[in-house]
């Protein structure tokens, strides 16, 4: 009756949506007695709304077949040199490059049936971060801007952060969908850079020439004095502005307000666990920001997609030396940082109220190129979801034997954004009010 035979959500051989829904509909008849369990779970879900979202943006297009969707039985010109290892999720294998994540796969859920509509970096980046093509009309807001708008920005910290590297770009230009889009620049992300030694810099807080903290304090004191010298107006707008002004002053001049950014507060051991890399230290910073209840944090793997162009910072765009780079650099960095982050979130009891997603803008061609590497592949890639009340330890969706296309229902970036919004309590009506994510549907398995 329950149809577990076809509902194989636990073993990664591809549940169909039909079997899933059928089971959903059938269960109430058979297990009405677990009613109380259900209600408790339901209450938990409603209260446990996601407080922070952390998106690990793997810029450049990480190879899916060499990481989370290996195909050891595919022909040689596809499968690549890496062996596979079992994970804690029965039936799911990763390549040997990700041993730490494999041993923690009971903490997250992998989607292997992602597809996108654009095969170039800036275009696919915008699709990946907003759900829509750049030329489909006005540039839509980054998912983070939507959450920021919904939560409001009266707290001491900005509601939407970019961490690690700046606005993702390829050489000619940056992603259009990086920020506020139709919601306006007020919802652009607030950039905090971190380098591999964990040194944090915040461009907006870098004092301009001729300005010192002392001078800012003097100015603020003078402003307060002048404010007191005349009658103040009562108005909600002015009050809101004054709060915002105070927060800005805090960030600029108040060491305590800047603590969330200060990685020296963490032990060397902790910092070491994340890895002495930009991405690793960025993940640690993201955890601190989530602890400070920042609603949306996007950790950028790199600012540029490229791997070897001058002045670039080794994105996942591995048109050459794909296997060497994945093995020696990218995968170890990701494996270590992701594992440290998810362990920390869990140990601190934050995983339920934090939604952690890792994804790039597309995958890479499963067929190995004549440069012995892989090119862009928009027809199949992965995303990894943890926390936020999502049932972990699953694998959703399945790709064909060569990892070229999903054989289950394809899942799109628009669905990713809609699901993030829904998990943050931004329901269909609110989305319509904000005029965002129009036409987006949920990833049913996650909500």
């Amino acid at each position, binding site marked *: 009756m329950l149809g577990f035979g076809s509902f194989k959500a636990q073993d990664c051989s591809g549940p169909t949506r039909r079997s899933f829904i059928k089971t959903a509909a059938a269960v109430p008849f058979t297990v009405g007695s677990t009613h109380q369990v259900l209600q408790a779970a339901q209450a938990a879900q409603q209260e446990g709304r996601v407080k922070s979202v952390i998106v690990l943006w793997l810029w450049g297009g990480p190879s899916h077949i060499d990481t989370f969707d290996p195909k050891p039985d595919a022909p040689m010109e596809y499968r690549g040199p890496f062996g596979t290892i079992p994970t804690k999720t029965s039936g799911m294998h990763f390549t040997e490059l990700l041993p730490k994540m494999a041993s923690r796969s009971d903490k997250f859920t992998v989607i292997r049936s992602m597809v996108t509509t654009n095969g170039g970096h800036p275009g696919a980046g915008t699709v990946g971060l907003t759900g829509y093509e750049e030329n489909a009309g006005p540039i839509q807001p980054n998912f983070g801007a939507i959450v920021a708008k919904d939560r409001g920005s009266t707290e001491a910290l900005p509601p939407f952060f970019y961490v690690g590297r700046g606005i993702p770009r390829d050489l000619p230009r940056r992603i259009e969908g990086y920020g506020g889009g139709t919601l306006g620049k007020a919802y652009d992300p607030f950039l905090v850079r971190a380098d591999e030694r964990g040194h944090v810099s915040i461009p907006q807080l870098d004092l301009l020439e*001729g300005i010192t903290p002392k001078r800012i304090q003097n100015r603020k004191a003078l402003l307060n004095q002048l404010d007191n010298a005349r009658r103040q107006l009562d108005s909600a707008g002015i009050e809101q502005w004054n709060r*915002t002004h105070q927060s800005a002053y805090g960030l600029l001049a108040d060491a305590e307000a800047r603590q969330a950014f200060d990685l020296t507060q963490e032990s060397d051991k902790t910092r070491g666990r994340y890895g002495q890399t930009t991405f690793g230290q960025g993940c640690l910073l993201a955890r601190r920001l989530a602890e400070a209840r920042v609603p949306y944090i996007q950790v950028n793997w790199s600012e540029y997609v490229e791997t070897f162009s001058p002045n670039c910072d080794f994105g996942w765009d591995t048109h050459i030396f794909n296997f060497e780079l994945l093995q020696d650099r990218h995968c170890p960095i990701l494996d270590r940082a992701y594992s440290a982050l998810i362990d920390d979130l869990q140990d601190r009891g934050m995983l339920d109220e934090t939604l952690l997603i890792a994804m790039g803008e597309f995958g890479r061609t499963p067929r190995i190129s004549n440069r012995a590497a892989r090119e862009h592949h928009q027809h199949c890639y992965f995303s990894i979801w943890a926390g936020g009340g999502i049932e972990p330890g699953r694998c959703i969706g399945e790709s064909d034997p060569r990892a070229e296309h999903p054989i289950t229902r394809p899942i799109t970036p628009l669905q990713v954004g809609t699901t993030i919004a829904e998990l943050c309590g931004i329901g269909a009506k609110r989305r319509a009010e904000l005029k965002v994510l129009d036409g987006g549907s949920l990833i049913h398995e996650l909500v």
Partner: protein
Amino acid sequence: MTIQKLIAKSVLVLLIVVSGTPLQAENELHEEADLKIDTIQVGQPVKLVISPKTFTLDGKHQQLQLIVTGLYADGSVADLTRAASYQLDQPEIATVNQRGAVVPKSNGETTIRAKAGDASIEMKLAVTNAESPDPVSFHFQTLPILSKTGCSMGACHGSPHGKGGFRLSLRAFDPSLDYRTIVEEEFGRRVNLLEPQQSLLLAKPRTEIAHGGGQRLRPDDVEYQRLVQWIREGCQVDPEPARCTSIRLEPGEGRFLRRPHHVQQMRVTAYFDDGSKRDVTHLAVFESSDDTICKVSRHGLAVGQRRGEVAVIARFLDQIESTVLGFIDTVPNFDWQAPEPKSYVDELVYQRLKQFQYLPAKICSDEVFLRRVSLDLTGLLPSVEQTEAFLADPSSEKRPQLIDQLLASDEHALFWSQKWGDLLKLSTRQMGHSGVLKFHRWIKQSVANNQPYDQFAREILLASGSTLSNPAGNFYRTGSDTSDITESTSQLFLGTRIGCAKCHNHPYERWTQDNYYGLSAFFHRVATRQTGRGDEAVVWMRREGEVKHPVSGQPVSPWLPAAQEHDLVSQSTDRREAFAQWLTSAGNPFFAKVEVNRIAAYLLGRGIVEPFDDHRDSNPPANGPLLEALAKDFTDHKFDRRHIIRTIVNSNTYQATAETNRYNVDDARFYSHFQPRRLTAEQLLDALGEVTGVPERFVSVHPDTKATQLPAPDLKEHNRGQIGEIEFLKVFGMPERQTVCQCERGTDSSLGQALELFNGGTVHRMVSSKQNRIHRSLAAGEPHDQILKELYLRAFSRAPNAQELQIGLDYLSRSEDPGSALEDILWALINQDEFLFQH
């Protein structure tokens, strides 16, 4: 893993699938027990009125809600429906329950007499078919119940994908689909004909089985019992249902209730195309436009919460009606006093303020007025010379004179063109560089010449040919298809956000999907093509082509609200003519109101209808008579926009201070005082330039062009991706002009903005530039107090008070470097709310 664990685990997974988001406030069912209702004081009504006077209840499940109103000697009214006692001549015919609803018992006729105090009144009731079977109607009972209990609302099963695999059409607009979904889909599991109570359709909403939507029905609810009966009767669908053609909501508009009389029973009557009518109060969905002023119970009892006015909306199937109720609380020690009204604007505003017992603010000072009106009419701060001359002018007519002078200025035309630039989406992305410049010049001409608004609208809507010779045609390049143009047009000129109706009947107002495509039909044949000559495009009309209804697939004919058949036909092959003719005719119910409301919103900081481009029944105007009067004045003056601006700006209402008193501090709707608002991005940048004396220069326009005069946010050199001075404007909310929604202009304050003022490049450059005013004045040897006075005049249009001057001079004297100290003072001035806000 044991089987139990396996089941429990999978159930948890599934639960997440079935439950979804917590319910939102939409369609909240208010139980009367949860509402705080004061005891109704009957007192001594002079007279009672009962509604209806006669009625026939046909069938044993029908009901009739009575409404009994008491009229008092002081002219007040009270709803006594629940306080009255009822006597029937023939008590075996029917009973009246404690809510004043009549329930039939047997066939026959009777008189019902209602008594309250010493007054009484009668109505005549007939009951027929009380003994015959009265099967539940799928169309008129089952579906309305699912709608009333919220099952088919947008946040639940009415969403496009349903919830938990169960999808209903939004608010039951597709009955046959809903029938299949409920009765046939999932192998008929949702209804259980043998044991109706065990049907999934009932077990879920009574939360016997977990339900993401929570408890929506209880077994003792009438609605629940009707659903049980419908299933027991075999889920019958009405063979040939009559069509519900309209509903009526009572009482009608204009009822004001004064505490303790703060409740009002509503009644909804449905009219059918077979000529019958039924009381559907118990099946209708009620909503209030503002739950903090009034909540409406599931039985249609409106309960006032605090003073104010609301629209009560009733919905039955796809019909929607609304009415307006006012609630008045007596404010202790309220003593009405107001300045002498200047025009009908003040009279109507004061009327409303008096009614709701708010005290109007005093008239603002000359200094405040000058700064406020300059910012509103020209976008700019007054110059020091203007300020000194105005403040020194002893004439009592100087305010009207200043207004006329500002209205005639080039700056006014440019600043108000920018507002239209926002609305008409002028951007190079849409129409190219020269397209923007030409369209901008065309709009500026229209504003400068005070072109009648109907002509302005007609020229835009009917534009054809080359956009180089007829720049208004660029309007048709701002949308990618017929839908875009339909939606832009209705938002601009009808004040209606019709977009929802593209996919389903609009959930909050009367626009249906049919209406949407009926309007689209006027624009479907408009075509544009780039010619390749510069930024030119050609707009022309195709000879054929019909818009297709997405559900029926049939072509849809043009349709207009409240229009006659002949209104729909154009004289030429251009269908838009009929639309433009109808739109700009004097009797059009939308056209004038939408524009005067927009003007009022620009000037008063808040529309009479707010948001000002969201006119709908469920969003009533804060002052209906004022909106009507302005619209009439506008129409009578041949759509003279400048006349309306002048009328408003000359009123006490516009010239009220922003300072509140204890009798108006909590009013934000009725214009009792001026609402301070942050300068727009462009106003702020210009004001910074004026105060510091280092104005921002923009490339690709004349060097003297101010930010408030920019034709578009993305002129060539400001292409996306480049960071320049335009960045400041965007941080402060300059719109990209991608939608016609005014909401695109950001008014939210963000940390980025505050940081920009503290530590941003633009402000820093202006404040510290050695060429700025303070450094120039210092170099010229001007005394410090003189420099400070001038700064105040520029920033606030007033002189500093003694204390302020002293603080400034002390700060200077403590500092070793007067240049740097003056920079700090300048910085402090531009960070004061008095500078950042228009007040």
